[in-house]
């Protein structure tokens, strides 16, 4: 287990480094940063000054390692737009996004996994068809459209839930549902497929031959095996969700990383964008690492070799 964890950790570090390189070079792919900062109609001397001031005149490799050296110390540069250290702004906004993400994935999984299990236990039943319908709808609906529809129905027409802001838990209901529902279809279908396969397996027959109660057979013997691929998928879906949070936070005016990303893009605030992408990527890498660990715990074939 320790060796496996160490290996996965090493891979995670490498992925994080690669991502940092890509995020760093983003600035240059999008054009000369000095010209961008100077703005339209700037004089050549001003651009040159800016270039020297921010150190854009150095070789890119040097710049990268300089940036990386500061980044690992928690210094992600200064925001062009907000005139504040990027790290301060990010760590102020991060908890909100994490909270939203946690609510959304919890909603998505608690919707998807029980429905997937139910659909597999009673294939082609009314539950199965209902679950399939929910999955197709969820997969087909764009997040932003679903978010707007929720606002229209529950915020404007029924007036049940607050539309924007983050003053209470009620504010998180619609965004979490909009974001989490997007995660549900794939997870639900994979849970169903996995359960169907596991329920037809020989060791389930053995469990029944031992006279075990149906609930023991279902939850102890079947679900644990069926959920292994679901864990990996849920981690990937969480990544998509982080991307989706940019749209959702903007729609619901939630002051998280997603909203910050949208603001920064509008302001062409490069260090901020760079840092947000990096932080989101690292969160994704960490989640994937945790999913790997959870799977190793669930499946001894991964853990014990």
């Amino acid at each position, binding site marked *: 287990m320790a060796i496996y964890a160490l290996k996965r950790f090493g891979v995670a570090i490498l992925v994080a480094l690669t991502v940092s390189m890509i995020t760093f070079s983003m600035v240059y792919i999008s054009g000369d940063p000095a010209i961008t900062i100077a703005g339209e109609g700037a004089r050549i001397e001003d651009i040159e000054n800016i270039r020297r001031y921010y150190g854009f005149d150095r070789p890119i490799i040097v710049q990268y390692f300089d940036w990386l050296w500061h980044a690992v110390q928690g210094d992600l540069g200064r925001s062009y737009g907000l005139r504040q250290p990027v790290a301060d702004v990010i760590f102020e906004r991060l908890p909100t996004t994490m909270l939203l993400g946690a609510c959304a994935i919890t909603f998505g999984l608690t919707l998807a996994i029980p429905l997937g299990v139910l659909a597999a236990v009673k294939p082609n039943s009314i539950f199965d068809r209902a679950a399939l319908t929910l999955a197709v709808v969820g997969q087909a609906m764009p997040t932003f459209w679903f978010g707007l529809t929720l606002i229209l129905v529950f915020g404007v027409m029924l007036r049940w839930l607050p539309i924007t802001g983050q003053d209470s838990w009620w504010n998180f209901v619609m965004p979490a549902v909009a974001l989490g529902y997007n995660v549900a279809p794939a997870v639900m279908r994979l849970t169903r497929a996995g359960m169907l396969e596991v329920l037809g*397996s*020989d*060791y389930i*027959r*053995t*469990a*029944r*031959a*031992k*006279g*075990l*109660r*149906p609930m*023991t057979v279902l939850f102890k*013997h079947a679900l*644990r*095996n069926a959920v292994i691929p679901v864990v990996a998928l849920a981690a990937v879906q969480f990544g998509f969700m982080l991307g989706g949070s940019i749209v959702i936070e903007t729609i619901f005016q939630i002051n998280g990383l997603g909203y910050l990303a949208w603001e920064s893009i509008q302001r062409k605030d490069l260090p901020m964008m760079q840092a947000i992408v990096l932080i989101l990527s690292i969160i994704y890498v960490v989640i994937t690492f945790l999913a790997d660990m959870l799977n190793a715990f*669930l*499946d*001894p*074939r991964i853990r*014990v070799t």
Partner: protein
Amino acid sequence: MSDRILTVEGLEVSLPVPTGTLNAVQGVSFHVDRGETVCIVGESGCGKSLTALAIMDLLPKRGRRVARELSLLGDPIVGVPEATMSDLRGNRMAMIFQEPMTSLNPAYTIGNQLEEALLRHRKVPRAKARERAVHLLERVGITAADQRLRQYPHQLSGGLRQRVMIAMALMTGPDLIIADEPTTALDVTIQAQILHLLAELQREFHMGLVLITHDLGVVARIATRVVVMYAGQVVETGTATEVFGAPRHPYTRGLLDCIPIPGKTKRGERLGTIPGMVPSLVGHIQGCHFAGRCPFTIDACTEADVPLTAAAGSAHEVRCIRADELMRSGFQIVESVA
């Protein structure tokens, strides 16, 4: 009658298939007394595995079973609530399956899976269950049982896993064990060991054993009684001596001809085969099921369903209208026909 463990009377199993209803088992009857080994033999698809699963009530979801009588220790086990069945399963009757490689749950240790079998049915502390698991693993010939309990199925070979399955079946000290081709998936050298182990344990624990197998050599040695199945029906049943010494059904005869006998079969000599194919069991077959492949078929064979009839003064039963006639002629008619 207290020694009667299992009674199967007129067991029918049917499965829906795209083309209709598959009548996989058609009126199978046999019984097992304490201390007996009853072997069911027959080729693939003859319904022997489904017979076993039907007794355990473990048929595939859409499978249907009916029987005039199906009882364990005198109590009916057909038409009873699932709760009653699951109290008996793994408790009074246990099953060993064909595929040891996939019959254990990969996510749990051997120990967990063994203990679970006992803890479900007996109010004993976990430590006691563990003790019993160690004892039984040692009994089925697994060394370092303590460490094995902490291992996962994927760390064990097929032979070891089947021993674990056998130990698991013994956890509650059942009255009946049904072993469905327990050695098919194993190496030849392991096969004999496992079958001998089963025979030994059956004597030691004084259980009833239903053994489904292809290995007629083993059957001849360990069977109290033999049930020969063909296309969903019992075609011949009797003691091992009766069935193997004087087979009365052309199919049994054919089966035995397919086995080389050391010292008797000459090198290079062709082993027997039974020509033709097993008939489809979808729908109803008129008359003898074996008629299409039997060299002795006459018109009367397919005119009416053939009953299982006992030879005078014995329990040796056969489902063939020409059995007596063929026995007298020593199965020689074939030559004149061919």
